[in-house]
């Protein structure tokens, strides 16, 4: 199942179980990074590690990198697309273990690791991560989502 399958629909607690996986893809471009930096008011003057390969290489990166906040936004977007409009994202907590770089194809993965029904409060725990073609996971995290019953 891809996250886009859930777009426009509603995910229900009754329909999910531990082990369910949903995926999407993301290949952040330089233009998207510049747009993100602009709208988030984080544009630094001149070339920098987020916009310029040479600047990124100066600090040991292979090429320009994707800002962590942008990756977090993509992961959050991925989860909220999946849960649907009546879901509630209670928390999302990520860490960045490897750099994500421009134009690198990333598989975005959500895996349900637990479902909890605590006196009618129905929540789902998910692992969320990005995986690149080398098998590295630049972003890993946990989201907790409240889903309605049918």
């Amino acid at each position, binding site marked *: 199942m891809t996250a886009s399958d859930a777009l426009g629909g509603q995910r229900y607690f009754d329909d999910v179980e*531990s*082990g369910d996986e949903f995926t999407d893809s993301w290949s952040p471009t330089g233009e998207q990074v510049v747009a993100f930096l602009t709208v988030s008011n984080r544009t630094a003057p001149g070339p920098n590690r987020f916009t310029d390969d040479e600047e990124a290489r100066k600090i040991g990166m292979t090429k320009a990198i994707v800002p962590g906040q942008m990756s977090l936004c993509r992961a959050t977007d991925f989860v909220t697309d999946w849960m649907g409009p009546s879901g509630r994202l209670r928390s999302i*907590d990520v*860490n960045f*273990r490897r750099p994500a770089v421009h134009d690198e194809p990333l598989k975005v993965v959500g*895996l349900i*690791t*637990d479902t909890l029904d605590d006196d009618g409060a129905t929540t789902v*725990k998910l*692992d969320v*991560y990005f995986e690149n073609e*080398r*098998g*590295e*996971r630049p972003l*890993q*995290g*946990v989201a907790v989502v409240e889903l309605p019953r049918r």
Partner: protein
Amino acid sequence: MNDSSKRWYMDLHSHSTDASDDAGGTVEGYAKWIVARRKRGYQIDGFVLTEHRQYDPDSDYRALSEQYGVSILRGAEVETDIGHVLVYGITPEFVRAFDLRQVSLPHKEVFRVALETGGYAVAAHAGRPRIGLAHYIDDEHMTIDGIQTVEQLNGGSSVDENNVGLALAERFGLKRVGGSDAHYVSAIGRCMTAFGRPIHTVEDLVQELLHGEYYPVTVEQTLEAGAASGERHA
């Protein structure tokens, strides 16, 4: 060692929210996930918590282990002058010998004292730049003295990095293990070590690491092994 039905699959490298501040997986979450994976045909018998730079002798996961039918053992991941090292069978003598919070412990001492006090040490994620053994052998000209085993297959390393670990192991004739390096629930068991005997205690683990025959596997390989030989966890 061709009869896969006799393998015992242990993840030798994991971190939890109980003691690693960069982890998001709980110990119970790991156990639940393993039960869920078994239902899908994967074989995961247990895991070792190797929290960063510490060892709490009072932590006890026996109740969880019994509840979920999963071996849950404890070790530590310490930091040395040849990168990170996994230690199993940690004794009070070992803890007294080192300040585990330090990030550049003398590796020869760590390997030696672990062995002399009834434990066993393994060079973690051997192919990983800066924190794996290969980097220190190839770039820093350290020696392999005292090191018998490397974590060649690490779930947090890239394919290329694991291949570097494999080349190192083959070059020096080192034994190889696998571990997920899980920090999040769904990563537990991603890479493991296949043993020839059941491992229920850390003493069992140390004995197997010392004298047994073992090799690293991915979780997908256990699926193939289960299909070929009948699943242990129905």
